[in-house]
């Protein structure tokens, strides 16, 4: 019995011990819970909140682009696209295989998607195919149960109703590339898949894009959104109203016909760009949702380079169109007077040099003054003037007219062209300047290069007698006046511009074939050599390959007493500035000043508006 009591005692003590252990262990659990719920409470509350909520961007709608009459050049149109949310897709490979079967996806689309998938976050919706047809949508609806995480979304997509007509000015948007992804402010582009790639779409990207909004959602563990907790709406992008007139644009394009080249028309009074044509052109709609490689290759392989913006990215020799400007320089530098005459033979020779600098007219011009030299485009007169002026003075003067530097137009990828100087040649070619090169520069050849836009700007500056504005397509931007070119005597302008008037209107003018317009035109023809004729050969247009034909240039403004339009037409291999480029310029001016083509040739607003669609 004593034993029994001892065992009972042991059990009692052990039970008390065990009870105490239980108490302290459970107290330990409480301590742990205190740590979780009191000490680290805020941390875990934040994590619970992060679990529970998700921020979703609301993409803004992109601003629209209109021409000066309110014709839509860039529009947003609803289109259906199929999108995948990676974290909701159970088996990505199987899903893509099934979608390929349903939608007939090609490798391009799959590649693009995989790249986006790699860069995106798992809960972001990634577009796979755009512009779904009704049939596609119906097929997807049937297969929906087998496609978790796959959704058909209605999104706004960019469309260019005028297609190729305004492609080089308006440009296009495209999907944000990997490279762009590295440079853009990602927050500003959340939910936005497109970015301006070229043209105004790129230049005014920030203005057109708008501001992204956001939406705070309550989500469950499977990523399903249950309700909206908070919403900040997006601010739509700003609309752009351009100075461009699609009717004039169409007239200019028609005037160029099948030639390659560019026509730029400015309003000299404020720098507004009225027409901006580069031919050949392309359909910007192809690029919006990723161009198919077949289409892209066709564009890239085309020897005429339709994607190349000839109006501001191509630098051509300006040819004789620089002569009025040269004349002004001669007058200003005191090298000539309006009355100064010289005898112009068939060629010009430098002292101690037997090279013949030929005039375009085989027999020479005889005695010429500045007026005749401009109107007849006498090369020898300007060889002599350039020689006496020297290249550096020529360079300084030309720069005032916007040659050799970008005009600052509101479009990307403008090139500066070139007005050579001794310094320039030493710096880039490591060579001394030869006097003969000055002569060639004096007639706008040799190293001289300028874009059609620059020529239009120079023409506008001439038209305004030295006053000019930065050319721009966005009409709501206030005109930005550039420094006015002040000459010693106002009569210098009369002399040079008089020469230009006679180019068109005098019997001895090179472009007299476009005279008799109901308004007074002042112009200047130019022919830029592509192929150098050897010393003892003659230039025979008929015998040359078309690619070797001279470029044709014509610049003009009108009406002379109150200029409202300045045009530069550059026609690749047009062979004759007066014969080919001048009539084109006349058509553009007629369209603008008479409104004839605008009304008669069915290029009415309606026709233009609907003509470009599809």
């Amino acid at each position, binding site marked *: 019995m004593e034993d029994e009591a001892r065992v009972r005692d042991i059990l009692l003590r052990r039970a008390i011990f065990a009870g105490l252990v*239980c108490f302290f*262990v459970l107290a330990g659990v409480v301590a742990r819970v205190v740590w979780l719920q009191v000490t680290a409470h805020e941390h875990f*509350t934040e994590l619970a909140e992060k679990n529970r909520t998700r921020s979703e961007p609301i993409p803004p709608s992109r601003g629209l682009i209109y021409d000066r009459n309110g014709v839509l050049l860039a529009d947003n149109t609803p289109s259906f696209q199929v999108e995948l949310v990676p974290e909701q897709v159970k088996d990505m490979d199987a899903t893509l295989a099934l979608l390929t079967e349903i939608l007939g996806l090609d490798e391009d689309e799959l590649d693009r998607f995989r790249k986006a998938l790699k860069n995106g976050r798992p809960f972001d919706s990634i577009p796979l195919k755009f512009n779904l047809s009704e049939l596609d949508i119906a097929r997807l609806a049937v297969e929906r149960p087998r496609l978790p995480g796959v959704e058909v979304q209605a999104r706004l997509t960019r469309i260019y109703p005028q297609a190729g007509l305004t492609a080089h000015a308006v440009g296009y948007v495209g999907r944000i590339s990997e490279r762009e992804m590295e440079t853009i402010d990602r927050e500003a582009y959340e939910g936005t898949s497109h970015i301006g790639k070229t043209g105004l779409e790129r230049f005014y990207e920030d203005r057109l894009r708008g501001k992204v909004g956001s939406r705070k959602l309550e989500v469950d563990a499977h990523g399903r959104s249950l309700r909206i907790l908070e919403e900040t709406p997006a601010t739509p992008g700003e609309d752009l109203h351009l100075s461009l007139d699609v009717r004039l644009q169409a007239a200019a394009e028609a005037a160029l016909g099948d030639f390659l080249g560019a026509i730029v028309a400015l309003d000299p009074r404020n720098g507004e760009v009225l027409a901006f044509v580069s031919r050949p052109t392309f359909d910007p709609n192809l690029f919006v949702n990723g161009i198919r490689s077949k289409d892209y290759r066709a564009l890239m392989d085309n020897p005429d380079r339709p994607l190349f913006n000839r109006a501001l990215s191509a630098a051509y020799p300006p040819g004789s169109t620089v002569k009025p400007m040269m004349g002004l320089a001669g007058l200003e530098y005191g090298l000539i007077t309006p009355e100064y005459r010289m005898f112009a033979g068939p060629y010009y020779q430098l002292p101690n040099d037997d090279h013949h600098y030929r005039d375009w007219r085989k027999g020479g011009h005889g005695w010429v003054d500045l007026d005749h030299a401009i109107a007849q485009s006498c090369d020898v007169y300007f060889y002599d003037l350039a020689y006496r002026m020297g290249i550096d003075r020529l360079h300084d003067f030309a720069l005032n007219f916007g040659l050799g530097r970008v005009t600052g137009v509101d479009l990307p990828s403008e090139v500066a062209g070139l007005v050579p100087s001794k310094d320039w040649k030493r710096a880039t070619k490591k060579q001394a300047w030869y006097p003969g090169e000055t002569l060639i520069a004096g007639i706008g050849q040799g190293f001289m290069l300028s874009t059609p836009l620059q020529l239009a700007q120079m023409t506008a500056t001439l038209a305004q007698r030295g006053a000019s504005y930065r050319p721009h397509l966005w009409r709501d931007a206030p005109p930005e006046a550039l420094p006015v070119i002040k000459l010693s005597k106002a009569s210098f302008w009369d002399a040079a511009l008089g020469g230009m008037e006679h180019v068109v209107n005098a019997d001895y003018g090179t472009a007299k074939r476009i005279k008799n317009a109901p308004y007074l035109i002042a112009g200047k023809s130019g022919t830029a050599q592509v192929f150098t004729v050897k010393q003892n050969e003659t230039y025979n247009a008929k015998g040359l390959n078309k690619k070797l034909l001279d470029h044709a240039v014509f610049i003009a403004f009108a009406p002379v007493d109150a200029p409202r339009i300045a045009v530069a037409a550059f026609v690749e291999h047009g062979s004759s500035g007066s014969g080919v480029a001048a009539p084109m310029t006349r058509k553009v001016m007629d369209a603008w000043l008479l409104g004839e083509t605008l009304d008669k040739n069915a290029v009415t607003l309606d026709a233009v508006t609907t003509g470009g669609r599809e």
Partner: protein
Amino acid sequence: MSAWREKMGSTLAGLRVDEGVLLRWLKLDPWLVFALLLLLGVGAVTVYSASHQNMSQMVNLGARIGMGLVLMLLMARIPPTVYQFWSPWLFGFGVLLLLAVELFGHVGKGAQRWLDLGFVRFQPAEILKLAVPMMAAWYLSLRALPPRPLDILMALLIIAVPMGLIMLQPDLGTAILVGAAGMFVLFLAGLSWKYIAGFVVALAGLLPLLWQFGLHDYQRQRVLTLLDPEADPLGTGYHIIQSKIAIGSGGVSGKGWLNSTQSNLDFLPEGHTDFIFAVFSEEFGLVGVVLLLLLYLFIILRGLYIAVQAPTVYGRLVAGSLSLSFFVYVFVNTGMVTGLLPVVGVPLPLVSYGGTAMVTLMAGFGMLMSIHTHRPFMAAR
């Protein structure tokens, strides 16, 4: 006539329900009954929230609670002598069933635990939760106490065989519970502290071996996860991370009943079963946790009191072991859910939804009450 009336009167008086008499007749312990009903109520309320107010689950839960209460009533009515007598038979039957599971068991969730009897599937391991301490107590009550080395070895064998079979299934959680229940019998029987220290040292020495050969890959992974849950936040660490978020975000006063975002939005897996403590903590906060753990402590201490009061060695050992096993349940589950212990499949006793575990526990409490309420007869013996 008057005799008839007298007879009627006395019958009516007998029918007049006297709670004390009824409880005495039912052989129930009012303290334990009250605490258990409270706990079951807390469980039902929390399961309702954690199962996203799934009514069919509530019906199931009600059926299980009913089954458990009926079993408790039955077990309480059976005198401890009967248990003592049947202990070896129940133990033998349980071990046979474990072998049957090993041979023809139903595989569920990657482990072979279930025996399908056609009309019902159940886990034989549950039986051993009661049978092992009963058997150990039966054996030791026949020997001189404190146990001598040979008796200790025999007791260890009684514990090791079923434990090993359960680990083979594999079901580490239940194996630990069964092993612990057996070891508590030895402890309460007066196993000397020297041996206990020896066991602890041996266990510490065996741990690396157990790690290498005794654990399945997924079990090893769970232990590693405990040490660093962030290492694999979407895999094995996910449960623990989400559970800690749930508890931590509950704060002192909790988010309120039905307001657990972690559970309602499905971030917390197994919210109504093994991880219900996280949902409870999120909704009722630190205040709720302290009250719940106090309720558990009360039940455990009441069980230990019953053990101390028990007239026979067998009764003392079984009652003490069952109470301490209940404590292990509570600790292993809350420790796991709060991130103190590795993830092992142990439900929060009487609160978690499901399983035969609840029924077994209620049976255990019935036995505990039987040990307490049949005392007078014992003492009379």
